[in-house]
């Protein structure tokens, strides 16, 4: 594909991410605006950082869910942190699942928590795939500035 086509693809991909509510356009665009000579791949760096940090939080959540009795307060706390983190890249679907999880926590519903957690992880993973392909496209289209 020629460069233009690639670039169009990138644009399309980006739009779809917003339309499908994977990402909040406002926040994502803000991140994009922060890209400059000093940080040409800022968005990708942030996303990478986010995913790296999420695994840490997931670990904590899983540990807490495995302990008996389950400390819902702690769970809620960790999820709250994760929710805040996911808001950094504007991950809408992920954030929604987090809210769901927190509801179950408040209700002390362990089953509900397990279920909601699976959904959080699912969305988290899906988004990752989407973003990875997006960044890949960008590189291919030469949209990523090189040093």
């Amino acid at each position, binding site marked *: 594909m020629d460069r233009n086509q690639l670039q169009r693809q990138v644009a399309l991909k980006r739009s779809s991410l917003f339309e499908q509510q994977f990402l*909040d356009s*406002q*926040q994502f665009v*803000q*991140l994009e*605006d*922060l890209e400059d000579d000093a*940080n040409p791949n*800022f968005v990708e*760096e*942030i996303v990478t*950082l*986010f995913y790296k*940090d999420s695994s840490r939080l997931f670990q904590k959540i899983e540990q807490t869910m495995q302990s008996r009795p389950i400390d819902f307060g702690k769970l809620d*706390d960790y999820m*709250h*942190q994760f*929710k*805040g*983190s996911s*808001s*950094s*890249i*504007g991950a809408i679907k992920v954030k929604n699942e987090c809210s769901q999880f927190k509801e179950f926590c408040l209700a002390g519903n362990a089953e509900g928590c397990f279920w909601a957690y699976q959904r959080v992880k699912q969305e988290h993973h899906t988004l990752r795939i989407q973003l990875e392909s997006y960044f890949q496209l960008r590189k291919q289209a030469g949209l990523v500035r090189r040093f």
Partner: protein
Amino acid sequence: MESSFSSPRNDSFPAGLRVLVVDDDPTWLKILEKMLKKCSYEVTTCGLARDALNLLREKKDGYDIVVSDVNMPDMDGFKLLEHVGLEMDLPVIMMSVDGETSRVMKGVQHGACDYLLKPIRMKELRNIWQHVFRKKIHEIRDIESHESIEGIQLIRNGSDQYDEGYFFSAEDLTSSRKRKDVDNKYDDKDFSDCSSAKKARVVWSVDLHQKFVKAVHQIGFDKVGPKKILDLMNVPWLTRENVASHLQKYRLYLSRLQKENDIKSSFGGTKHSDYSSKDLQGILSVQNSINIQQNDVAHGSYRFSGNNLVAQNADPKSNEGDIKGIVSEPVAEPKKGTTGNIPDSQKTRSSQMDFNSSYAETQKGLVGNVPDSQKIRSSQMRVNHSFASVESEVNLTAFDSTIPATYSWNKIQLEKEHKPLIQLNNGFSKPQLPGPQHHFQADQLQSIPSISSRPSIPGGDVTGSSKSKPSYSEYTNHHGSHVSPTISPTISATDSFPGQTKSCVVDHQLSETISTSTSNMKNQGINLSTDLESAQRNLILGSTSPFASLDDEFQICWYQGDCYGMNLELQNVEFSEYTDPTHVTEVPAHLYDALRFEYPCDPSEYSVLDQGLFIA
């Protein structure tokens, strides 16, 4: 970039604004850093609240504004907020994913200039400079109004109005300003002096804060007012405006402590005896939140807050961590290290020895130092001095194991009761500790000859500690015993200090109580064996050490404690927990706090403790 606000940087203001960002989320930290840099601000990032405070303290006047997340792992964002407000008087902006009204309100109550919701927009960050600017303007205006108000006051003879005005808020001030029609009674010279003084942010050092607290206590909390305080403090370069704003914060802090206490009281004192350090930690942590950051600097030394004490027995290491965070405010700790110091006997030892030398030392040492009875000895001596009779009643009662949990320090705060309790030295026979003192027999105190109630024994007296030692050690050993709560403050110094670094705070009381307690303890057969000396030392340290040189400070601390209703009700102090004398010496002020915590005697009591001693 220049550090001064009104420096050449003004031209490009707000460019170069020095921002400190605190957030435990690395992703957000990076984003915010980038955003702020884009605004041409000078950014410093921090992942922990504690680190942030350290940075701020190290570089006083090194930052213009602080932006912090509400949920931090090591310290509640609101607490950090208070600390910053009290110690550094910087504008603080809170951030959170949670936009619930109650949370936002809490933020504002704690003094946040603004509350931003995540995800944060660039434009919101771009405008943060307005908070810095506004504060400067207000400061200048305050100076003016102070002057004019003062004039009005004189005219009207209503100093209270003035105080009230200051107390309530900038808005009130504004109204009072309007009141003034003034006059330019205060000539330009004064004004300009003030203005220029104003420009430089006042750093409330430990000494300064102590003077402040002392003045407050002397005047009487109800009647206190910026002008009176300023006059008493006798610090030439300080302006009324400085004092007024500091007073405001102090009051906020106290009221929060009060509330905490109330909450605590409702907990029901079940923890009396088995108060594990864990519990204490918990309490301490609560305390911390309560502790207003009054002026960490000033109270720095006092920070020993119970954290250390508490933890001491059980798990010094872990406690340290907790304690650090918890350190209450009352005594703004200029010294960072104190709070967490748990048991480092080595440290304690040295610190103890140097009570006179500095709070810092004390602080560090106090917290965990107990083990050295030798130290206690010396500390004791010092402690005596410092235990100004502020809490006299507490002290005395300390011996009584049953000390009623009511030794609300609050009341005490204003009462400087320098009761002879302190005069442990001879015949301390039970200074009537009203409280549930544990059987501390005064006779034991005799051994604490040096424990003179005079807080001002900066160290000279400490030497005589040998006598007190025994009692102290007893005291310390007597962790388990219920040292009357009253003693707690004092005891903490000596005895239960292991966990209590509050020794200082208690000031005189401590010394007294300590002596008494120690003696009592002995009589009781409390096994103070652990380390009498260290206990003593601790006590001394607690009370004197920081006080040794800082007698005033102690008193001040104490006052703070008082205000906070230090419930010396350590009654149920379980000294057993304080087996580690090292704890005792560490932080005099905190000792009290610690004591309180350790002795679950009464939740309400704890709350009291919390207030005073925890300096985060």
